[in-house]
């Protein structure tokens, strides 16, 4: 089966190279048959990659420890579910996941457009297959997950080696959020390949008028939401598994996924400007190219060990190839933009600074500054080493000092932007439309001040949240009110029809509302409490309004790990509310690593977060760390709402005029 896997990868590589060459030949001297043949090769390459992926899943499911990846990331005692997901437990297998997703996306994109955009398709196929070939090449020659274990004997002979059991999956990866976080993140990091391929194809085939944007609007939005969902899932995982009490630490690995999200958020907004006004054509191509490249940059950072040795996946010599590939994409892309600059002339100019267009421009500017600052901070150790020979790294205070004001500016734009008309808005009409939101913001600020709040950035954040929320609610009410008056519909029906009639617009508002909830959750960070204490049975500790009393301690065993569990009775203002049972797990295989399982009492107001950090005093003294994290709940609610709003925006609009 291992040989079969390698064979599938080789086949896929040959097919994708063939498709690349056939597509380019078919395009240069128009031959429809050649292009069709290339497209069929894309399907075959996708099928072949899927088979390779299936082969690794099969090897893991059947405990084939002769294969290094299986021996290193699985064990007999591991539940079947985690055995399969151990595919992405390490570098080589996750590379196969990357290849599989790329190949599947290519197949789907080609199939969707089998009878449309015939001028662009040969170039689309060429770009898709260049990317797939590159990753197949790396997967096959530098990170093949089908390699077998071998033992070298003193006499120099090499024999196959079959261990009795595997090393086990890294315990902290054995969690539902970590099972789905990597695939979701990959869908988001890889997906911009398709819009990028169409952008390049549009340049090469001289399709002006934003055909590529229309063709890939859904891909873009889908990829964007996967990327966002991946970030939130990663945060959720860090929050409940790593046990340090937070969900985001400005770690290079986290930053590397946030950067393409920021760029694609900018793209999502600026593509509206191109579609409506025929402006920003060059800019949009650059944005989609950056989103695509940053996706690759993200996987490059985690795999190459560039940023720092402790932060890296295994060091490997992949780095050079990644850099060469990214440099090649960037130079070809920029050259094409330069060469086709006549095709990309803006159809209009900016009419007024007080206009929807201008709000979008500011949104783009600020998102790009955020991305650049994060890039700079993440890569600073590398740059400083080049320039001065010493590595200087920057920590969370740097990222916060710039991203907090940026977040506030973006929140303000989220509120004001939709209130501005296209082309130009008079100050007076803007004043009229901000009346209610501004009143809501003032009321919120006054309420917070009366409640004893003194932190300026939190005040600003929550007041802006009130502003944006009020603006969105007002928009919904006004639309529903008009429908009620015109057609006599009931309120719920009016709202449902309002959303159904213009899903892009109102789906977008729902996403904006979700952003408001998430920002409120982020603001809660300023009031986190932490307490650490050593307790014996019967003793208690206090944090915020809560009292935690150690009621007992128990131990137990599963095939996979031993565990110790402290039962803590939780009182809030002296009323008993529940028992929390934080756990310590000692895994039986591999590193024999100890992990903690966070016990969480989550309410809309705040999370009580308890970690059983250790045992001392001959097993009678328990080290307990408790955190009270206000408003974290709303981050997850906001994320779910964001997915919902995006789904609505993606539904086909009956009123929309289909593109030519």
């Amino acid at each position, binding site marked *: 089966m291992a040989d079969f896997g390698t064979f599938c990868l080789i086949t896929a590589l040959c097919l994708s190279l063939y498709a690349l060459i056939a597509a380019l030949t078919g395009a240069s001297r128009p031959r429809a048959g050649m292009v069709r043949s290339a497209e069929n090769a894309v399907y075959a390459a996708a099928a072949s990659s899927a088979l390779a992926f299936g082969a690794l899943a099969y090897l893991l499911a059947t405990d084939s420890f002769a294969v*290094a990846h299986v*021996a*290193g*990331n699985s064990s007999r005692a591991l539940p079947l579910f985690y055995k399969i997901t151990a595919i992405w437990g*390490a*570098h080589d297998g996750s590379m196969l996941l990357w290849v599989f997703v790329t190949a599947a996306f290519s197949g789907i994109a080609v199939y969707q457009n089998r009878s449309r955009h015939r001028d662009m398709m040969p170039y689309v196929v060429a770009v898709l297959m260049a990317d797939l070939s590159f990753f197949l090449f790396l997967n096959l020659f530098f990170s093949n997950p089908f*390699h*077998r*274990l*071998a033992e070298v004997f003193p006499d120099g002979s090499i024999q196959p080696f079959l261990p009795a059991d595997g*090393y086990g999956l*890294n315990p*902290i990866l054995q969690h539902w959020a970590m099972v789905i976080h990597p695939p979701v993140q990959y869908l988001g990091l890889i997906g911009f390949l398709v819009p990028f391929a169409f952008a390049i194809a549009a340049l090469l085939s001289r399709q002006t008028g934003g055909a590529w944007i229309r063709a890939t609007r859904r891909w873009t939005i889908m990829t964007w939401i996967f990327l966002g969902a991946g970030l939130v899932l990663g945060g959720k995982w860090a929050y409940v598994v*790593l046990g*340090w009490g937070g969900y985001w630490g400005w*770690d290079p*690995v986290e930053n590397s996924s946030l950067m393409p999200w920021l760029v694609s958020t900018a793209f999502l907004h600026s593509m509206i400007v191109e579609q409506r006004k025929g402006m920003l054509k060059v800019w949009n191509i650059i944005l989609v190219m950056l989103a695509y490249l940053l996706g690759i940059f993200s996987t490059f950072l985690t795999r190459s060990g560039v940023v*720092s*040795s*402790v932060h*890296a*996946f*295994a060091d490997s010599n992949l780095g050079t190839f990644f850099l060469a590939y990214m440099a090649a994409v960037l130079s070809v892309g920029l050259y094409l933009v330069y060469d086709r600059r006549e095709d990309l002339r803006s159809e209009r*100019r*900016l*009419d*007024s*600074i007080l*206009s929807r267009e201008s709000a979008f*421009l500011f949104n783009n*500017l*600020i998102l790009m*500054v955020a991305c650049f600052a994060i890039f700079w*901070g993440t890569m600073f*150790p590398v740059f400083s080493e080049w320039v001065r020979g*010493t*590595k*200087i*790294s*920057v*920590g*969370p*205070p*740097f*990222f*916060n*000092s*710039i991203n907090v*004001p*940026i977040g506030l*500016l973006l929140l303000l734009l989220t509120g004001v932007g939709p209130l501005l008309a296209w082309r130009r808005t008079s100050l007076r009409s803007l004043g009229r439309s901000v009346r209610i939101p501004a009143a809501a913001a003032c009321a919120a600020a006054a309420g917070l001040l009366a409640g004893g709040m003194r932190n300026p950035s939190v005040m600003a954040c929550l007041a802006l949240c009130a502003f944006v929320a009020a603006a969105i609610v007002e928009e919904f009410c006004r639309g529903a009110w008009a429908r009620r008056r015109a057609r006599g519909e009931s309120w719920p029906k009016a709202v449902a029809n309002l959303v159904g009639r213009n899903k892009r617009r109102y789906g977008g508002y729902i996403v904006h509302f979700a952003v408001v909830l998430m920002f409120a959750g982020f603001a809660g960070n300023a009031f986190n409490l932490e307490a*650490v204490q050593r307790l014996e049975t019967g003793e208690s500790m206090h944090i915020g309004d809560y009292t935690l009393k150690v009621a007992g301690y128990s131990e137990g065993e599963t095939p996979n790990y031993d565990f110790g569990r402290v039962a803590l009775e939780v009182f809030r203002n002296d009323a008993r509310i529940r028992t929390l049972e934080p756990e*310590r797990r000692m895994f039986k295989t591999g*590193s024999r*690593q*100890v*992990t*903690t399982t966070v016990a969480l009492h989550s309410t809309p107001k705040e999370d009580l977060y308890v*970690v059983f950090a*250790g045992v001392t005093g001959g097993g009678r003294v328990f080290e307990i760390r408790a955190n009270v994290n206000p408003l974290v709940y709303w981050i997850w609610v906001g994320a779910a709402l964001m997915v919902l709003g995006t789904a609505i925006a993606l539904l086909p609009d009956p009123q929309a005029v289909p593109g030519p």
Partner: protein
Amino acid sequence: MTARMKFLIGGGVIVAALAFLAAVGFQESRAYYITVDEYQEMRDHLQGATVRLAGEVVAGSVDRSGQEMEFVLGSRAGSVAVRYVGSAIIPDTFTDGSRALVEGHIAPDGEFLARRIEARCASKYEEEYGDRTGS
């Protein structure tokens, strides 16, 4: 003045303000990032600066008997004695032989005073089993 000019000026002001904030934040949070190997040679140069030090926890060196924890970070070429003076609980991933990143500063006698010990993220574990299974 054209709208385009206004946008450029407004954008310039925003970017300048953010750049200023970034510069301030940078001054506050910069830290020299060194490995145990570089410690001896950089030691005098880095007095008083915030330093992040990466190395491997030498097996058997962790002494948690006192109020403060002491341990040795090592590498192929050298080793550094570290005293942990922070208050947070030590992460579970911090054990003999594990790779650790500590942040703090260098005491005049050459000992490293760590305020923070970093818990590592999952994608950083590769090498542990990589060494064992190396194909």
